[in-house]
């Protein structure tokens, strides 16, 4: 009989070892799947995990791309994790991401073609405000009318997608684009561009913002009363109330902050890597970030690692997909497996596996 016994303290050893164990298990299970699909499993695994980082042909390009792909995930997940710790369920970061991009790009495009250095900072502020405002809708409905924030934030994603489509073919459409959908390319307009800051590193303002957010969240959680209140509200809501923590303030703070960060992520994406508002501008960062937040155990540093790992599987998955002719679906399933294993072995940190019947007391 196998059973689990709760550890008195989480095991430090296992908390470092489990991610590697999970990757090893995924390599085994994923390898079996790739073999079943008729692909050389060794080549597939190597292409996913090794080539983006070390292959002489790709690594110089792919390594910086990890930052580009991970930055929005980390930025959004950092904000979400604060809320999740407090029991505030913002599932709609995808919508806040879209709105941040729309408001930021909108402010910028309104000033086109001015060439002043002030435009980009202005857009950053507008993007953050846009995401914040979109998140304030569930926050206010929650605090005023007790409306469930999961439902409101989730449904507002679809509303935001509709807005995005109508903006891409309407208001924000490039007037010089011959009637085609999509806005002007912001990355080609110096005043609004979010370029690679140091050539060949992938570093752009979004990466810097992500790092800043992680540091801020870390300090907030460990050194600040608000961070303490957030943790208390999540672990013992009743005790928090007795301690004079206003649940409404926590809701407004957490939703607002995660919305603003998601909005920022959208803004940095639209001015940099994506370059323009288009009908399908959003690619699911807001949802993937929820996974990243939990994989990182809601800890700012964990989120950084989780974000980078997710980014690696995306980029390595793309390489594997076209080089080895693996269906994109198999890559998706592989990512799913990796997540399953990461989540499953996490248990070893907090529990001990015991064989045999319950030990006599």
């Amino acid at each position, binding site marked *: 009989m196998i059973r689990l016994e709760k550890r008195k303290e989480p095991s430090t050893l296992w908390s470092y070892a489990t991610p590697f164990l999970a990757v090893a298990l995924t390599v085994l299970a994923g390898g079996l799947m790739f073999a079943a*699909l008729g692909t050389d499993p060794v080549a597939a695994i190597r292409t996913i995990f090794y080539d983006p980082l070390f292959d002489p042909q790709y690594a110089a390009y792919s390594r910086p791309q990890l930052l580009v792909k991970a930055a929005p995930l980390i930025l959004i997940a950092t904000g979400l994790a604060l809320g999740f710790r407090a029991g505030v369920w913002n599932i709609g970061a995808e919508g806040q991401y879209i709105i941040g991009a729309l408001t930021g790009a909108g402010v910028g495009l309104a000033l086109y073609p001015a060439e002043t250095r002030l435009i980009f900072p202005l857009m950053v502020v507008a993007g953050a405000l846009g995401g914040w405002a979109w998140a304030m809708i569930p926050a206010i*409905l929650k605090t005023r009318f007790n409306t*469930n924030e999961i*439902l409101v934030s989730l449904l507002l994603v679809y509303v935001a997608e509709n807005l995005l489509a109508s903006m891409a073919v309407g208001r924000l459409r490039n007037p010089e684009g011959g009637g085609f959908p999509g806005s002007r390319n912001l990355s080609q307009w110096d005043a609004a561009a979010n370029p690679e800051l140091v050539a060949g590193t992938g570093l752009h303002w979004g990466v810097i913002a992500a790092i800043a957010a992680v540091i801020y969240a870390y300090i907030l959680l460990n050194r600040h009363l608000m961070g303490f209140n957030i943790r208390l509200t999540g672990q013992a809501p009743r005790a928090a109330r007795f301690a004079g923590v206003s649940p409404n303030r926590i809701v407004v703070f957490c939703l607002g902050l995660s919305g603003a960060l998601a909005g920022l992520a959208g803004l940095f994406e639209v001015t940099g890597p994506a370059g323009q508002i288009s009908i399908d501008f959003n690619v699911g960062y807001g949802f993937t970030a929820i996974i990243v937040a939990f994989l990182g155990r809601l800890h700012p540093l964990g989120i950084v690692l989780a974000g980078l790992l997710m980014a690696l599987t995306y980029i390595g998955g793309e390489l594997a997909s076209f080089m080895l002719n693996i269906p994109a*679906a198999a890559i998706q*399933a592989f990512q*799913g497996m990796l997540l399953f294993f990461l*989540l499953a072995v996490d248990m070893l940190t907090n529990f001990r596996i015991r064989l045999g019947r*319950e030990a006599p007391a």
Partner: protein
Amino acid sequence: MFGTISPTLLVAALMVAATPILLAALGELVVEKAGVLNLGVEGMMIIGAICGFAVAVETGSPVAGFAGGALGGAALSLVFGVLTQFLLSNQVATGLALTLFGLGLSSLLGQGYVGIKPPATGRLDFGPLSDLPFAGRVVFGHDWVVYLSLALTVGIWWFLRRSRAGLTLRAVGESHDAAHALGLRVRATRLAAIAFGGACAGLGGAYLSLVRVPQWTEGMTSGVGWIALAIVVFASWRPGGVLLGAYLFGGVTVLQLNLQAAGVAIPVEYLSMSPYLITIAVLVVISARGTRRSLGAPADLGKQFHATR
């Protein structure tokens, strides 16, 4: 302004449109009542869609197809069940991973099924009753799955409110520690609920691929599972509310397309947002009026259970 839209056909159409959402949301309701939050509805639905489709095509029987869809959904949900109940993984993240995995797996399974027509699921024959005005089409004009979904709504209501097993399930969801202390089998109950939820989501998915569309294409659920999740919250965890929510959402979706088709001069952008906005608005009204009754979330929803002794 509704002049040319026939209410009869509208109601009949919304019932069909809402059925996949209703089925999936009912399943999720039971799961959540047991204290488990499974965000993988979309993944289970699409697995149900391809399993149902494949079985129906291979056997030529839509009924077998629906059974296959339910089984497929349940099988996938057990991955979630094992992970969250035995390995105590985080439910939110595991559910999201389940969606990712389900979408990928379904495309792999479905590679040979693109561009095929499944065997047809016809309307049930109620004889002369089907010729009645209004009721003939709305009440007696559907395929069996629509009736199944309605029966399931009543059945789940009865189960949760009136049956002993339902009481156990709710007890487990409200406080797993207390339930465990009373000698109730928390894990087994939750696993059963998870499998049931998976089967319902699978049925909903199969309804999409076998009746509503009917066809297999990758990613064909396009977000229905998420709506189902929202509807459970909307319903404040009550079966009747799920029915109302699913029909409201399906109704507004169908109505907005009908308004467009009838050439009503409302900007299309607003029309296409309307199902989401109206659902939110209705929930705000309900929760603003609400007493404690509207806060029906099971107390231990999403929390891990580990028996210390």
